[in-house]
């Protein structure tokens, strides 16, 4: 399947292991990625806060670039991009006159956004386009005995109506379903649908780190080996900032945080190092130990 691929900013900046692991995993999932390297930042909701027309224009430009490719749809690997882009797309698709005005801004580049783009986060694409049965059939190293806590964050599940979370598309259970399809054990803990705190890291650092620290601590108490996140910004607060979060909540943490493509890669037979896990601030020791024990078990 060929998709117009929007990696976002952070996957190419402070979480390079996300972009890298996606590139490694894509061929194993029969995904051909057409990277939208001309597109600009989605604005993360903050540019929309600053100037709505600007955010809607930047994202309409990205959508138009995606529609110029021969990809079947647009795919992203960042919940924040998904949420911010869905918000802009909701406005663009809801009103012809407004869409015309925004498209007028793009006229200099001869770009036009046409209503009705399908923009799916990798998680949604896995379940809705690739399918869990196909995914299961591709697993070469089931995540047996690996206890994985899903961390959905906010932008990919709320508001439910805008993000198309409904009975037919229970997108708020997809991470549970994918972990199970990969052979792992789902750990339920208090923070599954909570906020990582990243959006207020510059405005209220104490509260932000407390959020991250509390969720990681809850997952440790629930006996998780690692958390998996569909969003690089969650990864920044939960992994990069984990040493600070630990200080903030006054307890030791040290829980590995995986990006979704990294978890997929493990089950599809790739090694932790290939998936960039050595770049994490929190060493994913439990995951590497698990991986080593599986390899040892297979050769024994």
């Amino acid at each position, binding site marked *: 399947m060929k998709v117009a691929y929007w990696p976002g*900013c952070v996957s190419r*900046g*402070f979480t390079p*292991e996300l972009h890298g692991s996606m590139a490694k995993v894509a061929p194993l999932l029969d995904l051909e990625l057409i990277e939208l390297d*001309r*597109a*600009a*930042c989605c604005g993360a*909701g*903050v*540019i929309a*806060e*600053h*100037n*709505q027309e*600007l955010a*809607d*224009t*930047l994202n309409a430009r990205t959508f138009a670039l995606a529609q110029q490719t021969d990809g079947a749809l647009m795919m992203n690997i960042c919940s924040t991009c998904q949420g911010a882009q869905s918000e802009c797309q*909701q*406005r663009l*698709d*809801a*009103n012809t006159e*407004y869409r015309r005005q925004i498209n007028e*801004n793009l006229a*200099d580049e001869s770009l036009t956004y046409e*209503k*009705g783009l*399908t923009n799916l986060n990798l998680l949604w694409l896995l379940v809705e386009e690739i399918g869990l049965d196909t995914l299961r059939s591709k697993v070469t190293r089931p995540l047996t005995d690996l206890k994985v806590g899903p961390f959905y964050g*906010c*932008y990919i*599940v709320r508001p439910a*109506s*805008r*993000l*198309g*979370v409904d*009975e037919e598309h229970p997108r*708020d259970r997809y991470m549970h379903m994918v972990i199970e399809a990969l052979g792992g054990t789902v750990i*339920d803990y208090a923070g*599954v*649908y*909570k*906020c990582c705190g990243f*959006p*207020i890291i*510059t*405005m*209220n650092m104490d*509260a932000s780190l*407390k959020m991250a620290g509390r969720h990681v601590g809850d997952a440790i108490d629930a006996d998780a080996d690692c958390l998996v996140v569909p969003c690089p910004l969650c990864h920044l607060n939960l992994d*990069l*900032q984990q*040493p*600070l979060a630990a200080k903030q909540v006054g307890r030791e943490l040290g829980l590995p945080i995986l990006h979704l493509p990294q978890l997929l890669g493990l089950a599809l037979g790739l090694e932790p190092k290939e998936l960039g896990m*050595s*770049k*994490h*601030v929190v060493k994913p020791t439990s995951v590497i130990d698990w991986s080593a024990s599986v390899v040892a078990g297979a050769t024994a």
Partner: protein
Amino acid sequence: MPQYLLKLRRYDPRSGEAAYWDEHRVDLGGRSSVLDAILKVRDEVDGSVGIRCSCQQAICGSCGVRMNGRPGLACNTHLEEAAARDFGVGWNPSEEGDEVPAGVIEVEPMGNMPVIRDLIVDMDAVHWKKIQRVSPYLINQQPVPEREYIVPHENMVDITQSMACIQCGACVSDCLSMEIDPGFIGPAALAKAYRFVGDPRDAEHHERLEDLSEDEHGIYDCTHCFNCIDACPKGVDPMSQIMRLRRRAGTDEKIVDRNNGHRHEDTIATLVRDYGLLHEAEMLPRSYGGNSWFGKFHPAAGQVLLRSLPSIVPAVLRRKVNIKIAVFGHKIPKPDLDAVKKLYAKIEGREQRVELNLYVSGFEDEPEAPPAETHGTGAPQDDGPATSPHELEAASESESS
């Protein structure tokens, strides 16, 4: 008649006993409300169940509770809807062969507020205090106009959204900022604040905005979790009102607050203009020290970078953060960056901002294909209020009054 298992969280702080689940089987149709079931238990089984309720028509806002982990009004939530909820922590999926085929419904008191008894929370201690905090009344211009004050239609429709609030506290219950930082003014009160900031008759827009920006628990303490939007039974969209307050404060009134809120917003907008992508390494120092390359030399930026060393050092050592990208950032190709800069110049140069408020305009377009065949990112059809044709004229209204 389907049978539901109603699990009520019972707790009396004066008893010295721990909270417990009180289970009752109720025979009621799936279209009966959760409140119907609670009242049935109270009337027929145990008169001591504590629940606050009055109108039973989603008007008085008394019966806010959490049902299977989600906040809402017990009176306008059907039993079948509550039982089917598969969102959030606290969900009990009913499986084939379950003893209670229609499902289990856990009813708990709302969060973020102290429990008085069972399902009754102390709204005075939290919710009403926050509402009082935002001066929830119109401050007239002086001298008071002698004749009626004509408010433009689109302004009126705009603030009608926050006026629709029935003060039930459902958004307060699940506010994730308030959960961590109880001082946060919170979604209900800030939506109420927008009701006056968005009202052209109010005389103290600037003062209100300055107050709410400078307060460390004010508009910049919201973490964008969207819980309040999903919690609200009246479609108030509290978070959207908070974002409007930020836009008014930062972009219109140019209020530079002590919480880095405006600098943070300005920094992201500027970095995307100059690089096309976010230059992450500049975000923290500029938000603290000022929105320019020199921001990092400001003492406030130095302080936060020092505090962040336990994260920065391993990130650099493990090559998570590429030094070149940290220093120079990453950019989109030059012709594209030039195009982005032109878009900025055009849009930010407008005298009046172009905005689409879906609450005012509604969802104009009908879907071209049946919803079942489209993917989830299209505009939902059942969201937002019904729109009368003349409201469409206000589609591109500016919120500036």
